[in-house]
Structures are given as structure tokens and as C-alpha cells.
């Protein structure tokens, strides 16, 4: 049965912990998912918007920076070129190096509006990278003015630089946009206009390289609505409802960047994120459960087993102590009232051990017309004291029966207790023989405290005979005393557990309150006296743990019996 219980306890703990933790983890994961899902769906539009807006900002900034670099490079060249308008070979060299060193520029040219003596008015000096990777330089001479393209004229008129519309380059034959900038000669007069050629394919590749997400399409239009980078075909095929479109302007270029995304793809992505989040949480949960199972197996289970054994041991001990306690109580008289047929004597007693078993003792019996009664207190408490108490009790029963010479009884018990008493255990003992016919009491006190006599409602200590406690010295000669009890006399025997009962402040009760309590019920029965004093003790301790066994034996001498 015990083995069965043990197995159940061990297995039970493991299963209980695993079930508990698993459900807790599942509950938490579900809650997290539900909260996340709720949040995601609530903030869905904003999330989509944020994602695309973030991309838009990044892409726009990157393209603008790239274009600014081209502008800066062009400005540097033009400033140099302005100074070189009269030296054609140096100018060619500068153009060549610019095209060579600036990757984003395919070619560069300057159209002179005056005749600076190269070839004539309206000649265009250029250098560009051909499709074979060679840099070609040359001069193109226009018959009359070159095509009066608006940017050329506008740039010339307003003395300002600008990005052109996309156009087919006359020299390169590619679709290009040009950064157009006026050129001034030494005198500060218009000398012409420079063009930095940027093929649309370059712009498209910049844009592509800045793409953060494959499924977002980028298209760019300039301020006149001319398309610089075309949207993908698949975007054009989608209905506007399926599209998420965000746009931004590149400030000084006047270009408009448009980001378009297929709503379904973005939604799908958010869904995938949720799923992967769920899977992650699930995996972590499984790991957690495994970890806890490990802990349970290697830590908690041995611990539980040890705990179980301790509990088991303790239960056995408790049980044994209960049995010992019960056995001890059975040793001493416990029937109340003890002698209903006796009208001359009333006896009551109580023994309340501070621990489960105690070292206090009381006993009484009537043989013939004599009441033999005693009280004792073994040094120490607990099991060892209780065994000594039991030994004394049996000695008392066997020695005292029929022997009314109290001193002799004490002496005989003492000799027996002294034998092999290695641990110097002893018992304080008060023993009396009361002749119920006359009230004559012979008693011996072996180191015990003075009993209380309540006579005519007044309590006082009963005279003592001083003797050594029992069990100390086998040569001790015990001396008895005698007295006569009068009808109505109450003799209260007690152990120091009564007078030295402590309250929580560790103040002892003292004999005074005990005597007052006894006096207050001097007209009552022996049981009233014991009850009243016990009540006083309990009132005094007010919940504090008992420091010693509380034992009382009260004998009320009602009348002489014949």
C-alpha cells in the first residue's frame, strides 16, 4: 500500500507539473497570438502604410542623393570648363576624365553659343561612353542654332540649371535625361550650355538597386508628367482596388516617385508573419515543456521522493507518539469521578503534557480504607522523561500498595530508580497515604514543591518535608511527616508547569493566582478546583506554547468514613 502511494505521489507530481505547465504555456501562447492578431488586424492599414511609406522615404532619399552627386560633379566640370573655353584640348581632356570617373554620367557635352574659334558658333564638344566601353570625344556642329529645345533655351535665359525631360540623345541614340547647366566665359557672359547625360536605364537601375522589397513597384515621373521610370506591367493590370499606392516628390528635382504594391501580396506577407510568429511561440513552448520535464525528472522528483520519505517517517513518528501519548494517559487514573461509591472523598486530576508525551505523573488508588496518592515531575521533557515517569509509576504501584509508611515507600522507589541511572535523571515526588476513616495523612516530599491546602476558604502552602528527589542518591534517607485533614479540606498537588506557566512576555503565573483560583471554588468539588486553576493557567498563557507539563491532583476530604 505504501509503495503504491509512493508511486502515485511521484508519478502524480510529474504529471501534475507537466499538465500545469503545458496548459499554462498553451494558454499564454494563445493569448499572445490572439492579441497579436487583433493588433495586426486593427493596425493593418497603418502597418501597410508604414511599410510602404518607410520604403518610399528611403528610396526617395537615395535617388535624390545620387542625383545630387551628379549635379555636383557637373557643376565642378562646368566651372572648370568656363575657364577653358579658349583651350579646346584642355576642355576635351576635362570632359574625357569626367565621363571616365563618374559612373553615373554616360556622357557630357558643352554647346557653345558663341564662336570661340573652335569650329564656329553652336558647336557641341562632347565625350561619352559608347556601348563598347570606349570613351568617344568629338565635336558636333549645328547648322544655325541647334534645336531650340525648351530646356536649352530656358536654362540659357534664366541662367539656372535644370533637369531636362527625357529625350533621345542625338549623339548617343539612347533615351536620356540631362542635367543642363549654363556656362559662362571669363567675362561672365553666357558661353553656352553643358549637358550631363544620364540614360533612363541608369535611373531605372538606381531605383531597382534601392528597392527594399521585390513586390513593391517603383515608377518615376518628372514635373511635366514625363515618365522616367516605367511601372511594371503587372501593376498596370491590377485594378485600383487591389493597389496600395503612395507617392512622394524629390524636392528640387520636381520628380514624383510612386510606389505601388499589390495589396494581396502584402496581406499574404502579414499572414505569413503571423504564422511564423505562431510557430515560433509553439516551438518555444515545446522547449519550455521539455526543460520543465527535465527539471521535474532530475530535480523535483528526487526532491519529492526525499520529501515523501521524510513525511512518511514523520507520519510514523507522529503515529508512534500518538500511541505513546495514549499509552501514557492510560497508565494514570482517568475515570471521573474515580470512586463514586466513596462519599467521604472527592478526587480530580489533570495531566496536560507540553509535548506529546510528558514527564509528569500523578496517581492514586484506594486499598482498604487508605487513599494512596502522589504527584511527580521528571527532570526534562519528552520521550526520555516519559519513560522514567512510566518506570516510577509502576514502582509506585508495586511498592506503595499496602505500605503506609510513606518514607519507606519513597526510599524503596528511590533505590530502584538510582540503579543504572547513568543519565542522572530524577523525579521530584510527593506521596501521601490518607486514612479515610480518620483523615490522618502521612506524606513524604522528595524535592517537590509544597502542595496547597485550602481550609475554610483560605489557601496556604502545606508544610513540607525536605528530601532529595528520587533517583539521585540511593543512600538517601527519606523523612515523612504527618497531618490531619479536616472535613472540607482541599489538598491541591501540582507540578511547576502550573506555577511557572509563561505568558507571551515570558512572565510566570506564580503561586498567588493559583491559590486565589483554588480559594474561589473552595465550596465546589475537586473537579471545580482543577478546572478553575486550569482556566487561570490558560488565561495567563493566552495562546503561548506551554513550557512545561501542567499537572494537578486535587483531593477534597469531605468527611470521615467508617
Amino acid at each position: 500500500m505504501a509503495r503504491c502511494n509512493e508511486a502515485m505521489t511521484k508519478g502524480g507530481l510529474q504529471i501534475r507539473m507537466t499538465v500545469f505547465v503545458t496548459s499554462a504555456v498553451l494558454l499564454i501562447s494563445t493569448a499572445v497570438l490572439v492579441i497579436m492578431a487583433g493588433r495586426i488586424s486593427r493596425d493593418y492599414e497603418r502597418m501597410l502604410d508604414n511599410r510602404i511609406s518607410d520604403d518610399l522615404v528611403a528610396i526617395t532619399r537615395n535617388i535624390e542623393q545620387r542625383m545630387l552627386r551628379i549635379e555636383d560633379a557637373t557643376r565642378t566640370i562646368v566651372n572648370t570648363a568656363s575657364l577653358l573655353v579658349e583651350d579646346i584640348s584642355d576642355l576635351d581632356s576635362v570632359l574625357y576624365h569626367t565621363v571616365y570617373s563618374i559612373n553615373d554620367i554616360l556622357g557630357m557635352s558643352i554647346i557653345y553659343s558663341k564662336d570661340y574659334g573652335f569650329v564656329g558658333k553652336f558647336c557641341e564638344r562632347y565625350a561619352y561612353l559608347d556601348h563598347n566601353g570606349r570613351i568617344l570625344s568629338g565635336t558636333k556642329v549645328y547648322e544655325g542654332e541647334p534645336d531650340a529645345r525648351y530646356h536649352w533655351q530656358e536654362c540659357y535665359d534664366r541662367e539656372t540649371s535644370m533637369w531636362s525631360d527625357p529625350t533621345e540623345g542625338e549623339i548617343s541614340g539612347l533615351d536620356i535625361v540631362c542635367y543642363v547647366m549654363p556656362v559662362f566665359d571669363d567675362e561672365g557672359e553666357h558661353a553656352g550650355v553643358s549637358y550631363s547625360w544620364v540614360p533612363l536605364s541608369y535611373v531605372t537601375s538606381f531605383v531597382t538597386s534601392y528597392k527594399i522589397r521585390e513586390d513593391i513597384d517603383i515608377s518615376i515621373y518628372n514635373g511635366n508628367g514625363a515618365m522616367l521610370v516605367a511601372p511594371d506591367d503587372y501593376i498596370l493590370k491590377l485594378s485600383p482596388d487591389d493597389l496600395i499606392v503612395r507617392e512622394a516628390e524629390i524636392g528640387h528635382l520636381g520628380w514624383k516617385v510612386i510606389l505601388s504594391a499589390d495589396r494581396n501580396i502584402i496581406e499574404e506577407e502579414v499572414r505569413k508573419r503571423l504564422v511564423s510568429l505562431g510557430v515560433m511561440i509553439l516551438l518555444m513552448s515545446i522547449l519550455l515543456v521539455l526543460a520543465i520535464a527535465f527539471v521535474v525528472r532530475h530535480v523535483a522528483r528526487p526532491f519529492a521522493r526525499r520529501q515523501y520519505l521524510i513525511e512518511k517517517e514523520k507520519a510514523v513518528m507522529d503515529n508512534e507518539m500518538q500511541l505513546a501519548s495514549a499509552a501514557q494517559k492510560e497508565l494514570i487514573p482517568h475515570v471521573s469521578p474515580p470512586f463514586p461509591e466513596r462519599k467521604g472523598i472527592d478526587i480530580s486530576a489533570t495531566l496536560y503534557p507540553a509535548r506529546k508525551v510528558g514527564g509528569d505523573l500523578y496517581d492514586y488508588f484506594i486499598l482498604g480504607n487508605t487513599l494512596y496518592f502522589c504527584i511527580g515531575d521528571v527532570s526534562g521533557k519528552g520521550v526520555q522523561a516519559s519513560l522514567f515517569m512510566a518506570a516510577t509509576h509502576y514502582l509506585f504501584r508495586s511498592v506503595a500498595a499496602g505500605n503506609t509508611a510513606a518514607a519507606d515507600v519513597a526510599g524503596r522507589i528511590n533505590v530502584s530508580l538510582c540503579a543504572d541511572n547513568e543519565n542522572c535523571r530524577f523525579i521530584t515526588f510527593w506521596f501521601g497515604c490518607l486514612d479515610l476513616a480518620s483523615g490522618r495523612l502521612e506524606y513524604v516530599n522528595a524535592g517537590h514543591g509544597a502542595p496547597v491546602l485550602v481550609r475554610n476558604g483560605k489557601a496556604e502552602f502545606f508544610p513540607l518535608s525536605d528530601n532529595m528527589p528520587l533517583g539521585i542518591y540511593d543512600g538517601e534517607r527519606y523523612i515523612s511527616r504527618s497531618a490531619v485533614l479536616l472535613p472540607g479540606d482541599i489538598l491541591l498537588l501540582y507540578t511547576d508547569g502550573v506555577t511557572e506557566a509563561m505568558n507571551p512576555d515570558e512572565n510566570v503565573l506564580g503561586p498567588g493566582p493559583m491559590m486565589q483560583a483554588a480559594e474561589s471554588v473552595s465550596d465546589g468539588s475537586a473537579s471545580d478546583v482543577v478546572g478553575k486553576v486550569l482556566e487561570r493557567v490558560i488565561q495567563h498563557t493566552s495562546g503561548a506554547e506551554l513550557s512545561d507539563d501542567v499537572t494537578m491532583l486535587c483531593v477534597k476530604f469531605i468527611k470521615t468514613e467508617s
Partner: protein
Amino acid sequence: MEIKIQDNPENVTVVMSGSFDTSAAEQAEPTVKRLEGMASKPMIIDCNALEYIASSGLRVLLRLRKACAAQGRQVTLSGVNEDILEVLKVTHFDQMFIMK
């Protein structure tokens, strides 16, 4: 409860202070064992600071007396207060020790 031991050349002086009740006696067990091993010299128990003694405490005194007696030595109790002296008298313990 506190027990201090002075192992002097001519005697062993034991200074007891506080309340010598049952739990103190249980806790003092190792000290008592040690003192029993020192019983080859006369033992003086200084009780000036001892406030209270329960029967368990008396038993400790008895054990020390017994250990000393086995080697022909005596135990002296000094500075015993009136309450404790009363206890010692009732139990005749005062006759087993040299009282100072």
C-alpha cells in the same frame, strides 16, 4: 542561557547566565559533555548571573557532580540567588554541592 568555560590550572570555572530551562539544557548538551570530560579538576559553577533553573538544569548540575565525584573532585556552586537556593534546599541539592 549562556555557559562560559574557563579552564584554569587549578580548577575549571563555569559561568552560567540566564534561564536554565529544559530547552536550554537540551541545547547545552555538547557543552555538558565537554565539561564532563574536564572533571579531573575541581569545578566551580558561577551562578551569579543565573536567574532561573528548571529540573533539567538541576539534572545537568547532577551530571557534572557525578563526573567530578568519579575522579574524587567536588563541585562548588557560587553566587546562587535566593529563588534558586530555595529550589536547591527543597530538593536537598544544597547538600550535594559546596555552596559558596
